[in-house]
């Protein structure tokens, strides 16, 4: 049995940790509210943009390189993770989804958003084209535009055949789905008739493509940021519960140790008194 003093020290240290996890839980909860509100107000924009892009592509006969399937051997994956850990499986799950995409392909270009993604792919010796960090908690549209430019340049230069984005979809506070989405080349949804273009087909596609990528990346970043906070909230909540359990277990063994000590002392006194008689 551990000494009383050791147990007491242990209890104090667990209680300290619990205080931290509890605070992190509260912080994540308030950040989640902000992230979820931002996501909610932007969702119509990027969801409708996807529909608009698919409609436009299915109504076109353009032979633009952005619409043509290539061999699909060389990929560029934009991976969206958080800057910080302690968020359950949030960071790892999306990285795994991206890895599954890269599996068996010969060309790989990874653009990471968030420190955790960068570290993950660096450890696995993947080619990181660009690594962004610092804004995954509260992304701005301008950030997405910059990332889209980098990806588009790679595609334009013919260095990659496909551009994907890997992110975590925020289905609800409890359900986060690691997802990958193909951004380029744009796939047409099954045609619903021809469409006119103003000012012209090629000019429209020229405008559509960069906006399409930045919009979808922006959407992915917002979904992910809400997931990060909500995953951290859940993780810290269970950590707080675990430390409560641990503390009650430790308190029990502390009390037992104390009782043992008292019993032993009594025995010693009684046997000492008996010896005197």
């Amino acid at each position, binding site marked *: 049995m551990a000494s009383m003093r050791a147990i007491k020290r242990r209890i104090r240290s667990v209680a300290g940790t619990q205080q931290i996890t509890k605070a992190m839980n509260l912080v994540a909860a308030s950040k989640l509210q902000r992230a979820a509100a931002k996501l909610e107000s932007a969702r119509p*924009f990027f969801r*409708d943009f996807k*529909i608009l892009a698919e409609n436009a592509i299915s*109504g076109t006969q353009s032979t633009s390189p952005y619409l043509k399937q290539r061999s699909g051997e060389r990929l560029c994956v934009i991976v969206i993770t958080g800057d910080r850990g302690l968020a359950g499986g949030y960071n790892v799950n999306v990285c795994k989804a991206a890895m599954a995409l890269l599996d068996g392909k010969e060309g790989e270009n990874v653009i990471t958003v968030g420190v955790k993604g960068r570290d993950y792919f660096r450890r696995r010796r993947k080619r990181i084209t660009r690594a962004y960090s610092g804004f995954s908690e509260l992304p701005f549209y301008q950030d997405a535009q910059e990332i889209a430019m980098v990806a588009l340049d790679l595609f334009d230069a013919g260095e990659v055949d496909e551009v994907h984005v890997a992110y975590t979809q925020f289905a609800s506070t409890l359900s986060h789905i690691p997802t990958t989405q193909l951004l380029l080349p744009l796939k047409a949804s099954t045609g619903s008739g021809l*469409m*006119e273009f*103003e000012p012209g087909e090629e000019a429209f596609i020229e405008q559509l493509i960069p*906006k399409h990528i930045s919009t979808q990346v*922006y959407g992915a970043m917002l979904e992910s940021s809400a997931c990060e906070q909500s995953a951290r909230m859940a993780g810290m909540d269970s950590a707080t519960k675990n430390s409560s359990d641990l503390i009650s277990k430790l308190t029990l063994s502390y009390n037992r140790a104390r009782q043992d000590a008292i019993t032993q002392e009594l025995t010693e006194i009684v046997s000492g008194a008996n010896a005197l008689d």
Partner: protein
Amino acid sequence: MPRLRLKIATPKKLLYDGEADMVILRTSTGDMGILPGHHRVSAIMGYGALKIVDGENKSEVAVMGGLAQVSGDAVTVLSEVAEWPSEISLIRAEAALERARQRLAQKDSDVDMQRAELSLRRALVRIEVSSYPIIRPGK
């Protein structure tokens, strides 16, 4: 009589999601009036006022570029920046106009010129739209 289903969205928020009788889009090539039954079209938006006619209500939205699509009776306008007249600060727009004019007069590098021109156009649109009486379409 079928009505249009209009949606105007920006990355910041959904500006309009409802029905309308007529929409006039300021596309990059000029104004385009949309009535129910319009053919399918995708257009690049210009900088300007988008007009919405909904029964007796008429309203304007300042739209700065973006894309629009008419498909069936659904009209979707997606722009990086779009504002209601009530959200526009005329004082700030006029200040921006003045700044942009000064910068254009200086003639520095190309990038700066482009940016100054864009902000000049934005300011002009804002000033034009902000003078529009606020008649929000009833929902």
